[in-house]
């Protein structure tokens, strides 16, 4: 279980980028984290994966605190950033081997997993090519394969569908659902609200650093007395909460 407790993060000055955030992602959950640009999504994600320091609260994964035992914590997670432009001078295979090596995945296990995901993403033929020659979508696929190679307990993705072709996007959604069935927790940010609505069993909407709504979408609909409105979508809710509708 991922627990974000009383989490606050300020940048320069007193302005809080994220203010007293509390949320829980249970085993098997796919949690969609939604908000406008600059709402605090990426800041939260970067703190969840241990890239940024934060002042208040704590973030725990399966009872392990990111602050107190970050190495053990990070062994259980995988992070797919929104910008996959790293180590472009390596081949896809070299990059995956580097990541797998850091997570201590043995050769046989790594080969099996990578073969499987590379097939799913049509990347088998391209693994020995330089990442520099990849398209944005292919780079994203390599990042996804590398992130899945050690079978993480928590998968954190920042805008994962940007740049993926429809087939790869469908494959990723299938993988996310499969992982979720195996008990993996998935926490991801997105602006593609119909995807979040269909894919996630829980959503959280963040506005100006504050979580304004969180939970199961149907339950949220009930909370806002929208159960009778069949065509009431997550997009409607999002815009209503923002005051745009």
């Amino acid at each position, binding site marked *: 279980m991922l627990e974000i407790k009383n989490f606050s993060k300020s*940048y*320069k*000055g007193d302005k809080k*980028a994220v203010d007293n955030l509390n949320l829980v992602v249970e085993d098997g959950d796919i949690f969609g984290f939604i908000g406008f640009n600059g709402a605090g999504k990426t800041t939260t994600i*970067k703190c969840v*994966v*241990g*890239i*940024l*320091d934060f002042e208040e609260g704590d973030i725990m994964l399966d009872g392990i605190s990111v602050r107190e035992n*970050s*190495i*053990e914590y*990070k*062994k259980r*997670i995988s*992070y797919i*950033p929104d910008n996959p*432009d*790293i*180590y*472009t*001078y*390596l*081949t896809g*295979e*070299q990059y*995956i*081997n*580097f*990541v*797998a*090596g*850091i*997570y*201590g*995945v*043995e*050769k046989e296990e*790594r*080969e099996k997993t*990578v*073969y499987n995901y*590379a097939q799913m993403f049509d990347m088998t033929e391209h*693994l*020995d*090519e*330089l990442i*520099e020659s990849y398209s944005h979508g292919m780079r994203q696929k390599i990042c996804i394969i590398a992130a899945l190679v050690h079978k993480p307990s928590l998968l954190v993705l920042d805008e994962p569908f940007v740049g993926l072709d429809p087939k790869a996007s469908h494959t990723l959604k299938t993988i996310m659902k499969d992982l979720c069935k195996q008990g993996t927790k998935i926490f991801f940010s997105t602006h593609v609200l119909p995807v979040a609505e269909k894919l996630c069993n829980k959503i959280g909407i963040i506005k100006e650093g504050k979580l304004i709504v969180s939970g199961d979408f149907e339950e949220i609909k009930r909370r806002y007395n929208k159960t009778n409105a069949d065509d009431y979508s997550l997009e409607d809710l999002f815009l209503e909460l923002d005051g745009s509708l």
Partner: protein
Amino acid sequence: MMKGNSVMNDKFYNLKSIIKINYLNLFSYNKMKMEKEPEKQREYRKRFRQSILAYPILFISMFLMFMGAGMVMKLNGNGKMILAFSLTAGTLMTLFSSLFASSRGLFAGLDNDLLLSMPIKTSDIVISKLFLQYTYNLIFDAIISVAATIVYFIYNGIDLIVLLSMAILTLIIPILPVMIGTLIGILLSKITSKLKRKNIITILFSFIVLFGYIYFMQQSIASDDYVNSGLFKLISSSIITKIFIKALDFDIISILLVIGVNALSGILTVMFITKIYKRLITMLTSGAVTKHKRSYKSDSGSQTKVLYKQEVKRYFASPTYVMNTFIGAVMAIVVPVMIFFGRDGVGSIRDEMGADILASVMAPVLGFLVCAMISMACTTSSSISLEGKQLWLKKSLPIKAMDIFNAKILLNLTITIPTAIISSTLICISMCNNVFDIISIYLMTITYSVMSAHFGLYENIKRPKLDWTNEQEVIKQGTPILITMFGLTFASVLLFAILLFLCLELWMKPTVAGYMFVIIYSVATFVLRKWLKDKGAEKFRKI
């Protein structure tokens, strides 16, 4: 199917993996090795060879410099001083180049997010990044040391103990200056993070350090008894040099002291940075966030003006970029300034040599020296690479490639033309007494400035490197910059020496060599400009 490495039960596995990944990008080695497409592979191989070639050029320049200095030191009965001098000079160079580059390398790497999200000890990330800085500096220090050692052996005979001591010292001495430079850089980042114009303050601070360094250098050259003054005195009488000299005699205590101090500085710095690493990354990230809170200011003007303004902004946004290029401009002015203020000395030389000879021989040589320094101020040789992954933005604009090139050349000339004019004026006041000589000096320095700006851009278009993870990879270690800095200077030295020799052989005034130089470099500029307009623009589109 992919080849996976077996994971070892190795405590240092992560550290070794990150270092290996970083090393694969040195000289674009991995691209050369792994590229499948024959045409691209040939291109990478060519780039690899050319980047390696820059080092022998640096070595030859150092060797020739030490040959002259070594002879003086031998005559003074202190042959080993050339070795100690090379070690101390290497230490100072490393300190200066690490001042901001190291801290930027630590905190501004594109791979920081990935590494920090993985189960890697922060200390491993810090060590790997500092190790890369150490390697960059070691390459330069090793070239200086090897050149000095060979010169020492030529004058004093081969000595195995000296060889062994030099090998140990060369490997060890970059550590301390890298650590000190990094810590100063961090301190400055911390202080300036709360200020609005932090890059300008960083650049100003750098220049205070630079001028202090030049002051000592100036002292050593301006004095008649240079062996007992300024930088030479500072270096030769400094505790560091004394320890180096003892260590060169294989004095175990001195060797252990050098190793101990360097190792301890490394350990303490790693421990300190590890403690504050994430806090600093967060602090620097927040700096980036606040930048976007500025209100929108509209910009107007012609395409070239807008592009030029953008180039200027890009330039001052990077203290590393400014420091690595502006140093050439400063150095180009230093020698004429010294001569200007030491005109009394010049006057006595004039009395001895005769005013005409002084003007016709010394003035073009000094003019050429200014040109050589201007090569170091070339901004164009890394300007394409610095666009990095954002290059598509410029390529997608509805503007001619030549307009983009012109903006980059203009930035270069903004720095080098005033430098050329100031230096030429000082040389002319100090040495020249007829219009023919005066025009020659101005033409030489200005023509060279224009040509080197074009040459730098030509080099960078031919050898761009957009996949850098840290901008100093292209600003400091980029092949185009090394070729422009050393290759162009070296070729120009040869050309000028030949022209001067021809003039003297044909009983012509040496100033004529200056005019011939101007003609040749004007033609070269014309050819380069033509290349940029046609092939350069085409190549730029394909990058």
